[in-house]
């Protein structure tokens, strides 16, 4: 019998498909990388920040639009904000918000908007700052098509953020399924509808017949998909956190969930 030493490993979980770069768990989030880099320049910090911004620029636009500004103004403002933000001028301040990128980003935007008219005069559009090519057109269309809840800009921001997040997660999930199996993408398309249902509510019997699988096999497949979805979701959220404790991830998830359920 092996392992007579007192130290016994606990093993229970699947590792993520993209193993983290470093061995330390908690330094692997992008946001942590950015924060760790501080104001100094580090290529991977830049890259991480870039990636974060690309993922979550629309919520900022939604926020600004929700404030009641016109399309052109919103475009200008968001562009200008990113110009400044990516220059990392903000990273010294607002230390209380550093734990969460979402909140940090919004705080920076608010701070920026408060001084906007100085900014507009000082920074020219498309100046020497980094230029993010963002799809303004689709952004506007998308904003127009969203159901007009009388949500506050903060609420709109959070919702948009959650949608962006889920988009990423589902995209990754689909990519994994496709990479695994030939029929993976099809299977994903079928099974993804079950992601919104509780385990009791899933009509296994009917779906199994439609898919040509045994119910047991379908159960297993759905279960694995859900499990993987949860893993990816948590991972994505964790990327925007400074310290990815399980409780913090849950907290962030709850906040995002609350953006949909609670009153604006």
């Amino acid at each position: 019998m092996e392992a007579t030493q007192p130290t016994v490993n606990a093993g229970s979980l699947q590792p993520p498909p993209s193993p983290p770069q470093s061995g330390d768990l908690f330094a692997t989030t992008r946001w942590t990388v950015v924060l760790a880099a501080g104001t100094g320049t580090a290529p991977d910090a830049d890259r991480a920040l870039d990636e974060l911004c690309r993922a979550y620029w629309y919520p900022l636009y939604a926020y600004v639009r929700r404030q009641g500004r016109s399309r052109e103004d919103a475009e200008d403002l968001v562009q200008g904000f990113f110009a400044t933000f990516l220059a990392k001028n903000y990273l010294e301040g607002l230390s209380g918000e550093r734990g969460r990128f979402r909140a940090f980003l919004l705080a920076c935007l608010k701070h920026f908007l408060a001084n906007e008219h100085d900014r507009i005069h000082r920074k020219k559009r498309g100046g020497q700052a980094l230029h993010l090519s963002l799809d303004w057109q689709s952004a506007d269309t998308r904003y127009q098509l969203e159901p007009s809840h009388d949500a506050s800009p903060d609420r709109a921001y959070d919702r948009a953020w959650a949608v962006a997040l889920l988009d990423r997660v589902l995209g990754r999930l689909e990519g994994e399924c496709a990479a695994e199996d030939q029929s993976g993408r099809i299977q994903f398309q079928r099974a993804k509808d079950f992601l919104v249902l509780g385990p009791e509510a899933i009509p296994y019997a009917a779906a199994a017949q439609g898919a040509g699988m045994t119910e047991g096999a379908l159960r297993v497949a759905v279960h694995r998909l859900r499990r993987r979805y949860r893993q990816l979701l948590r991972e994505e959220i964790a990327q925007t956190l400074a310290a990815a404790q399980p409780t913090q991830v849950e907290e962030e998830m709850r906040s995002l969930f609350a953006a949909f359920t609670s009153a604006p």
Partner: protein
Amino acid sequence: MNTDSDRTCPGCGMPLASHAPGGLCPACLLEQGLATEAVPGGDRPPFHPPSVAEVAPLFPQLELVEWVGKGGMGAVYKARQPGLDRWVALKIVPVQAEDGAKFAERFNREARALARLNHPNIVAVHEFGQVTHPAAPTGGAGEGAPGGAADRASQSSGLGYHYFVMEYVDGANLRQLVRAGRLSPREALAIVPQVCDALQYAHDEGVVHRDIKPENILVDRRGRVKIADFGLAKILAPQTSEARLTVAGQVMGTPHYMAPEQVERPTEVDHRADIYSLGVVFYEMLTGELPLGKFPPPSRKVQVDVRLDDVVLHALEKEPDRRYQQASEVKSDVQGIATSSAPAATPPPTPTTATGPAPPHPGSVSPRPGRLAQMPSVLWLALVTLAVVAVWKAVAGPQAGWSVLAEILLVAGLVYRVKVAYVATLFFAVLGVVVTLLNPPSWALVVVVVLNGLVALPVWLCANWFFPTDTPQGLQQRRLAWTATLLWLPPLTCLWFVLSGHEALNVDLDADAQFYTALLGLPSGTGLGVLLAWAMGTLAADPATPVHGEADSGRRTPWQVFAAWAALAVSLPVGGAFLILVQSVRRDPSWNPGTAEYVVTLLLAGGAILAGLASVALGLSARRRIRGAPDRWGGDARASMAVWTWPVLLAGALLWVPDSEKIRAERQQLAARLAEQTSRTEIALQQAALQETEATATAVGATGSYRISLGNGAVLEAVALCRDPRGAARWFWPDGTLCGEPRFEILELPELVPTRRPQITIVPENEVLCYVRWSLPAGSRIHSQQPTFDPPPSDWELPAKIRDRERNLEAQAELVCFSSVPHTVTYDVASSFGPWSPVSVYSLKTKVARDLVPNALALWSEPRYDTQAGALRYEVMHTLDRRAYALRMIARMADGQTEELVFHTGPQGGSPAKGYALVHGTEAATAQKLSQVLELVLEQTPWVRSQIRGIVLPPLAASAGSSPNPTVPTARAAAGLVEGSPHLRAQGSLARNLGIGAAVPPTLDSPWPLQPEELAIVPDGPMRDSRPWKRPSQP
């Protein structure tokens, strides 16, 4: 981007936004992302346990009986091994697709290690292996091979099971016990050491459980602890050492029992993680809650030993190095605490499936020190209260002290737990002292009752002070204490007022009012107080008192306790009413057997005795039934209190008995004194009669003088007499000479009442009108008795009104009727002129009489309304000589005025020593008047007796016959002689006296004036004075 806005989410039914991630509702996605399916130890799909019929064919060597439960990862069945004739538990876990052959090999290796664990507190593993599901859709031929060595793995999911045949534990797991509320800290302390034993053994064998939680700790029916699923978490996990948690921190199952390092650094987990889990379980057993976040130590949540805090916190240290390093250390610490605080550790609870009563309050391992529970403070309070009682007793009288003491004795039993009742009594006593010292008017009763309500406020604060709030029973006690105080105080006020307060408050309360007020106040106060005390005692303590010898080990308080308290609750008010009645009627001397009150008193006494005996007997019986319970309030103390309440009260009543005896002695003394004084009065009166003439001041008129001058200037004068007032009405001077001038005129003559004394012959000629007059100096008053004549006339003397023309005034004359008119009479009258001197003063408020004259010995009676007379009657018995002294009674009012009462000195034929005055009026009016009377005063002033002797009553001239010539009065006419009057008998000497001799002897027809002395007139009737009539010398 879809513009399809008709879509709704199948999960929540809300319309989908235009841009929905993957076409799915983001809210539901997040919600499902939050949900974690509790799949401990493995990332397996939720397992749906197959039925017994499905599983039984797989295990032909076992007789499956029933499905027992889901074991998290698999299912557990109860089975029987017929070969060995023992019960076993069969646990099956479905084989997963990813479980490869290596997995199976590792599984068997680990399982073998588990099977080697042999400890009384670890569920033993008899067998393990795999079986193949016979109805596998994709190949997988062959049956599952039972036994330990076969390890053929199946290819697809749902095709087989890993199985364990384990020891069957007939009992419940800790989760079920905690949820059913059948776990007290004492029992928790008995469980933990057994768990530690198991853990220590396993750790020594190199096995870590890694999944210690209440569901895995079983307790069998005999109270033995067994830990299940040892190491299975590791075995059934498909991964081994390099596995670690993702950054997402996904944890299987509820992480609450997992040590922090298990969550954060799963590669560095060792046996100390089990100790952490044990700490979590321990905390949950004690408090019922998980130690999440900043959690309070157990002693702050429930009543447990403070030392347990250290053990629990030490086990819950985040850093493994700071934790207990060995399970045996935990055990020794826990056992040390358990043995030092409780002499006998109770075994763990027997997990019956019966749903017990409401969860018992965690009993005390050692009593939590209350904020003011130190004995010296309680003693100090007791001393202060007794001192207050003593002061009040001295001030307000013995009854006040007893009533307060009785209250304290009654409440003494509540002191054990409900200190607020003690404080309430203290406040009550202080309030009573204050009220007594201030001596306010009677409306202060209302104030007192209101103040009692205000007392509730500080009592409220004291209840907060005494009872902690961080225990549920502390809150309950506090609420009950408030309720008890609010309900107890008004009846106590009533009781105090009845017993002694009305005196202190100067409110008159007669026996009836006392009786009924007490009857109203006592039951509500006493009964309520007693019942509430019992209720509080019940709820404050552990209601589950182990009763030995009962068939089912249900913990119940025997019915005798309830019955004893019911009897107590009945007996106390009844007994109290009896005492009140006795106290109130003892003041009334007219209370005697045969009255309704007497019967009621007997009934009350009988009822109280019976109920009191019943409470004592039932309490003793209850005590006998409850054995083994230490001095806990729950069963034994309540029974004890039911036993001891009446003996204590009777002991307190002994303080009262001397009072009653004293009062009885007082009564007897009073009666003896009264009898003595009555006889003394008679003696005094007899003596007075004998010494009448010497003892009294008598002014006697000189012979021949018809006026008496007294020292104070008053003059009594016999002025004139009238013979035949209804007829001829001849007036004479008191010396018998005719009053010639028409000086007197009769105005009013009283009517004769012939039927008044039928045997008396009213002879109008025998009537005499006597005009006797007082002349008083200015400003003096006279108080005269009825005059008397000697010889006494007939039975009636009536006043008549005449006019004295000379003095020009109206006067009163006495009309008397003689049966035979005497020659002379003596006029005797007693008068008093004041000043009045007080003899005895009786205060109506204090009911105390003061004798101011030695030997006066006045005995006053309480004023009472005489319905027959229709008057308020003041009565006094005295030893004063009525003949010597004039007596009068006056009433001194509250406003300083005095009112003279009509004083009657003794009824006719009654005791001359009894005097009374009547104040006529309705009962209410006289009561109102009486309320204004401060005191009654008996006063005396000496009589002055005046006698005029020798008043001549001249014979009456016959009316019949001719009247002589009025112008030339003849001697005959002058003499008023009537011809033929039988009264006239001329004597021989008459002629001589008339001057007959030398010349012509005078005859009756001689012209007047004749000298009357020359006539020898023989008076009519029998003569008292046989001296010849002589003309008195002219003044």
